[in-house]
């Protein structure tokens, strides 16, 4: 059985993928190891979207409750466990953000010319795997406006309406830019 020796001998040294496989089988020690290895990253993801610590903590609880029940759905053939977990965290955080009565204020976005990247730690790009490098290279092929909008939507969880306010552009244009940006991104990644 693949991985079995590794997990049996050293639970904390097991890969996230192997831990998820154990969690899918109901292993509590594996779940605790998974939490220890990923909670800080996933808290960072929740906090990036929600900004408020108390809300990010609640979101993090929801994330791990979901991971406990859905670990069996992770498909290692498609990507890394880290990406899968981070997307669950982002999704839960955005759901929570949408339930806020007051969406709060977000910084304006400059879509003309060179824009500041919303991605908070560009130095980590160097550490990223192939999937990340391919995605970055395809994002770089988008024009600056589409790229800035997609980054702002992804990292801030802004709606179309919020993006229109933040950029001062008509809602129709924002939708058009993002939809075309998504289509272009997919075409580039599928090449």
């Amino acid at each position: 059985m693949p991985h079995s020796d590794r997990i049996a001998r050293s639970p904390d040294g097991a890969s996230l993928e192997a831990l998820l496989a154990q969690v899918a089988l109901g292993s509590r020690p594996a779940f605790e190891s998974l939490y220890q290895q990923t909670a800080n990253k996933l808290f960072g993801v929740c906090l990036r979207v929600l900004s408020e610590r108390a809300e990010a903590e609640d979101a993090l609880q929801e994330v791990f409750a979901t991971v406990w029940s859905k670990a069996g759905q992770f498909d290692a053939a498609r990507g890394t466990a880290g990406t899968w977990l981070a997307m669950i965290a982002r999704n839960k955080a955005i759901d929570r953000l949408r339930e806020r009565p007051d969406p709060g204020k977000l910084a304006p976005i400059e879509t003309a010319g060179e824009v500041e990247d919303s991605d908070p730690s560009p130095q980590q790009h160097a550490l990223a795997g192939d999937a990340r490098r391919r995605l970055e290279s395809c994002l770089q092929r988008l024009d600056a406006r589409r790229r800035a909008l997609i980054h702002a939507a992804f990292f801030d969880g802004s709606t179309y309406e919020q993006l229109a306010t933040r950029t001062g552009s008509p809602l129709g244009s924002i939708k058009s830019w993002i939809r075309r940006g998504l289509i272009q991104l997919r075409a580039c990644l599928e090449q």
Partner: protein
Amino acid sequence: MSTNDPRPHDDELEPPGDDVLAGEYVLGVLDATQRREVRRRLESDPEFARRVADWEWLLGPLTAGIAPVAAPAHVWPRIRARLGWPPEGHVEEHAGWWQSVGLWRWAAGLAAAVAVAAIALNIVSHPLSTQLPPVARVVTVIAHDDGSPGWLATIDTSRGTLQTMPIPSAPDTQGRVPELWLIPPGRAPLPLGLLSTGRSLLITVPAALRRDLTTAAVLAVSLEPPGGAPNGVPTGPIIAKGMVRL
């Protein structure tokens, strides 16, 4: 790459196709109402769910750029509580706790048994079933020593797969996990993989073992350390077994 926008505003007038809608959902630009609609659809439309999953894998690597932030220490105990686990350092033999879990598992077991019956009788409609003759699959019962079923298995020899359904039970108090073995007549057990006590699992039988998957063989379950028997030989007690039925 050129980025001409000959008609930048017309997209708003027509609803986007499913693929773009899935991308918008994953990107996070939909409002609360639209997100709820998408979530409802995800539960009933597997094709749409597949599109959403595709976009998650496509955009997911962007999360690599998000810096970790130390999660407060009180979050872990809250997660344990939320999952209905006893507080850490607490002995787990608690009547109230087991009762509620037991009730849940009983309901899940009933659902699993119904699902097995549906698969066995080919009631579940499946695109393939229109091309294949209706075949009732035989169920192998892997039973405990007292005769109560522990797991049910349906074996597909053409694909070399084994669909296992647990009759849910409490996890082993020592943290051991169930592992499935194929025992051909007069030979040592061959490992088939770990089983779940609460979930259905599809096990792919290694090609080298498929010819041993005959009605003369026995399927057995032993309790093993997390991760499975380290050397491919059972180390724990056999808790259930049954003759292979095809």
